[in-house]
């Protein structure tokens, strides 16, 4: 099994991607709603990631 080195950002984006796919698949009733919800979850994940990143950067001084 090859070893993989990812940055914080890459790992968090991949986590967000797969979690969003699963959340989209299991929550809604039509494919259109599932797609929209999955994309929305991914956008929220990324927004939280960038927002918290800036918060930690600014908080660190």
């Amino acid at each position, binding site marked *: *099994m*090859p*070893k*993989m*080195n*990812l940055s*914080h950002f890459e*790992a*968090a984006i*991949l*986590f967000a991607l*797969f*979690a969003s*796919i*699963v*959340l989209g*698949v*299991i929550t809604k*009733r039509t494919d259109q709603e599932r797609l929209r919800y999955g994309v929305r979850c991914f956008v929220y994940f990324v927004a939280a990631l960038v927002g918290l990143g800036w918060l930690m950067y600014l908080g660190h001084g």
Partner: protein
Amino acid sequence: MATDQAKAPSIGTWAPVVGLGWLIPGGGHFLLKRTGRGTLLLVSVLSMFLLGLMMRGAMFQPQTGDILTTIIYCGGFLGDLASGLLYLLATWLGYAQPDVAGHVHDYGTKFLVGAGLLNVLAIVDAYEIATGKKD
């Protein structure tokens, strides 16, 4: 109460779906002929688990002690176990990464647990489909 029991789905309708869904991510959906959704679940959980292995994440072993230790290690072990055959195969084939410092290993550990937790969501979805609570 008696009406609720009469309406309760029999174990035969959902147990195979839940069992297969645990062993193979998305397996419950395949059994219920939801192949598209099953494939997406399988690809997501499998990718996350494999990424966790490639990042050399550690598998949790159940430990007891103070409440936080018990919650983290027993909960983490259950999360790992929820990946089903992926977890069983990895441990049977000798995957035993020690818990070492470093953000990549740390993410790997979380990816392994996260894969199991996503599989739990998939199992619950398959259960609801099998019992007629959703499509």
